[in-house]
C-alpha cells in the first residue's frame, strides 16, 4: 500500500522527465506493434490458405510451365475433386507502383475452388461470358475506385502489349483474412494471343490448382500427382497451397527478418532510454534511499522501490502504446501502403509481445540502479545530502 503510494508519487515527481520517457515508450511500443503486424500480414496469405487445396507446378521452378493436358491426368488421380489452373500475368496498371497480383485463370471452374471469394452468381456468369472480362477483389476495387463495367488498361510485361479488361465481378472476402486484392482474367484470352505470337508457347500453364476430397490425404495425393509425371517432359512438384504460399514468403524472408530485427532494436533503444532515466532518478535520490535504510528499511525495499518505479513507467508507456497501436494500425491499413496487405490487424500475440517488451524494459532498466542503490553504504549515501 505505502509502497505503491511512494512509487506512484515518485514516478510523477519529475513530470517533464517522466512525460518524455513515457512518450518515448509509447512511440517504441506502437512502432514495435506495427512492425510485428507487418510481419503477421506478410504471413496472412499463407495462414488463410486452405489445406484442402493443392498447387502443382513445374518441379524445376515456377518460371517453367506445364502443358495444359496434364489437367486430365491429374483429375484421374484418386482423391482429386476439381482441377483448375492459373498463371501469373504480371502487368502494370498505369504506374509500376500500382502493384497488385494478376492471374490468368480457367474461368470455367477456378472460383469453384475458392468459396472464400464471395461473388454474385450473375456477375460470375458475366465474367465467364466475356473473354476480356475480369474479376477483382473488393480492396483493389476500392483502392482505385473501380466499378463493375469499368475498362481497365493493363500493360503487359511478361506478355508485352496493351491489354484491356472489363470488370465483370467484384468479390468480397468471406473472412477478415481473405485476400481481396487480386485481379483475375481469362487464361483462354491470353493463351490465344500467345499462340498467335509464339506458337510453341501456347497451351502451357504455370500452376494447377487442385481441390481434394480429404485434406488429411494431402501428402499422399501430392505424391501420387508427382509420380504421375515422373520422367515426363515437365516433372511436377505438388504441395498444399499453404506450403506453396509459405515458399513465397520465404523468398522475402530477408525482409521479414530485417523488420523483426528492427522492431527489437526499437525496444532495445527505449530500454536504454528508460534505464538512463532510472539511473538519473536513483542517483538523485541516493540520500533519500540512505535515509530509508537509516530508518531500518532493507536494501531490498529500496531496490523494490526503484524496480516498481521502472515497472510503472514501462507499463504506463506500454499501456498507452498498446491502446494507440490499434487506431494507428487501422490508419495504416487504410493508407495506400497498407492496402498492399490483405489483412492488417493487430493480433493478440502482438499485444502479448508488447506486454513482454514492457516487462523486459522495466526489469532491465531497474536492474543496475536498483542493485546499486541497494548496495551503496548508508554513510556514503547520506554524504550526498546538500
Amino acid at each position: 500500500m505505502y509502497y505503491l503510494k511512494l512509487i506512484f508519487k515518485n514516478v510523477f515527481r519529475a513530470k517533464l522527465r517522466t512525460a518524455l520517457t513515457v512518450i518515448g515508450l509509447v512511440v517504441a511500443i506502437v512502432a514495435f506493434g506495427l512492425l510485428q503486424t507487418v510481419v503477421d500480414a506478410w504471413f496472412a496469405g499463407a495462414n488463410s490458405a486452405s489445406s484442402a487445396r493443392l498447387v502443382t507446378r513445374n518441379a524445376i521452378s515456377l518460371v517453367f510451365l506445364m502443358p495444359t493436358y496434364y489437367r486430365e491426368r491429374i483429375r484421374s488421380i484418386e482423391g482429386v475433386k476439381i482441377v483448375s489452373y492459373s498463371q501469373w500475368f504480371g502487368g502494370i496498371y498505369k504506374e509500376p507502383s500500382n502493384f497488385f497480383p494478376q492471374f490468368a485463370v480457367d474461368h470455367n471452374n477456378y472460383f469453384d475452388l475458392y468459396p472464400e471469394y464471395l461473388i454474385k452468381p450473375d456477375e460470375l456468369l458475366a465474367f465467364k461470358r466475356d473473354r476480356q472480362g475480369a474479376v477483382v477483389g473488393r480492396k483493389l476495387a476500392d483502392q482505385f475506385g473501380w466499378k463493375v463495367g469499368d475498362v481497365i488498361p493493363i500493360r503487359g510485361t511478361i506478355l508485352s502489349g496493351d491489354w484491356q479488361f472489363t470488370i465483370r465481378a467484384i468479390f468480397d472476402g468471406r473472412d477478415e483474412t481473405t485476400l481481396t486484392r487480386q485481379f483475375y482474367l481469362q487464361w483462354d484470352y491470353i493463351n490465344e494471343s500467345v499462340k498467335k505470337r509464339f506458337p510453341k508457347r501456347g497451351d502451357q500453364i504455370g500452376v494447377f490448382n487442385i481441390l481434394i476430397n480429404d485434406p488429411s490425404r494431402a501428402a499422399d495425393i501430392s505424391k501420387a500427382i508427382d509420380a504421375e509425371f515422373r520422367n515426363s517432359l515437365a516433372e511436377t512438384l505438388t504441395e498444399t497451397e499453404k506450403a506453396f504460399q509459405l515458399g513465397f514468403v520465404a523468398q522475402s524472408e530477408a525482409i521479414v527478418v530485417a523488420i523483426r530485427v528492427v522492431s527489437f532494436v526499437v525496444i532495445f533503444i527505449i530500454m536504454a532510454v528508460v534505464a538512463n532515466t532510472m539511473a538519473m532518478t536513483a542517483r538523485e535520490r541516493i540520500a533519500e534511499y540512505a535515509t530509508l535504510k537509516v530508518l531500518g528499511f532493507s536494501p531490498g525495499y529500496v531496490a523494490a522501490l526503484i524496480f516498481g518505479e521502472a515497472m510503472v513507467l514501462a507499463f504506463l508507456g506500454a499501456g498507452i502504446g498498446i491502446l494507440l497501436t490499434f487506431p494507428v494500425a487501422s490508419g495504416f491499413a487504410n493508407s495506400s501502403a497498407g492496402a498492399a496487405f490483405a489483412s492488417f490487424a493487430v493480433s493478440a500475440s502482438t499485444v502479448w509481445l508488447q506486454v513482454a517488451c514492457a516487462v523486459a524494459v522495466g526489469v532491465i532498466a531497474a536492474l543496475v540502479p536498483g542493485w546499486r542503490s541497494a548496495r551503496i553504504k548508508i554513510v556514503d549515501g547520506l554524504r550526498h545530502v546538500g
Partner: protein
Amino acid sequence: MSDTLVEIKNLAKSYTRGDQDVPVLRDITLNIERGDFISLMGPSGSGKSTLLNLIAGIDKPTGGILRIDGEDISKLSEGELADWRASNIGFIFQFYNLMPVLTAYENVELPLLLTNLSRSERRERIEMTLNMVGLSDRMDHYPNELSGGQQQRVAIARAIVTDPTILVCDEPTGDLDKQSASDVLNMLKELNSTLGKTIIMVTHDAHAAEAARRIVVLEKGELLGEGV
C-alpha cells in the same frame, strides 16, 4: 557508573582510499549514561559524524569495542543492524532528510511501517507526536510547504515516534536560523528531561552545545577531553 548505555573502548575507524588506509577515529574511549544529553564538538572533519554514525549503527568500526545497552553492535549483520536501528535509534539530520513526496504525517509514519502497529494505533501515535512538536496543524503539508524549523520538527517527530532509546542528531541546528535553532534545542532538552531520552548531538556550534549536559571535544579523530 552502573547505568552505562553506550560503552566505547579504544574505538577506531579508518577508510580505505585506493590502497591507502585513512584513519578517521583513533583510540576513542567514552561512556555515555542512560538519560544523558551529550554534545560532540569539534572542527569540521574531526570525525564527529563518523563517531555518531558508528554509535547509530549505520557504519562499522574497524577496531575497538562498541557496546550499546550491553550489545556489541559491531557483531551484528546488516539485516540485524537495520532491525536494531529501527527499534533503538532515532536519527535527526542537518538537512532533515524528509521524503519530499510524503506529507508531514506520512513522513512520521514511515518508521512505524516497520512495526506491527495497526493503522489506527499508528494514527494515534503520529498525531500525538506531531502535537508534541507543535505541528498538529501541518500534518498534511509537504516538506516544501514547511519552513526549515518546521521540517526539522517533523524530523524530530519521525525520530521519536518509535520511542527509541537513543536520539542521535548530526548538526540538527546547522541549517536553521537562530530562533528555529533555539526551538529545536529546547525541544531536545525537553525530550531529554521529561521523556528521559538519551541524546547524542554533534555540533560545531558552541552555543548549541550548551544545550547538552555534557560536552566532549574531538579533534583530528581523537577525543580531547570534556567541557562543562
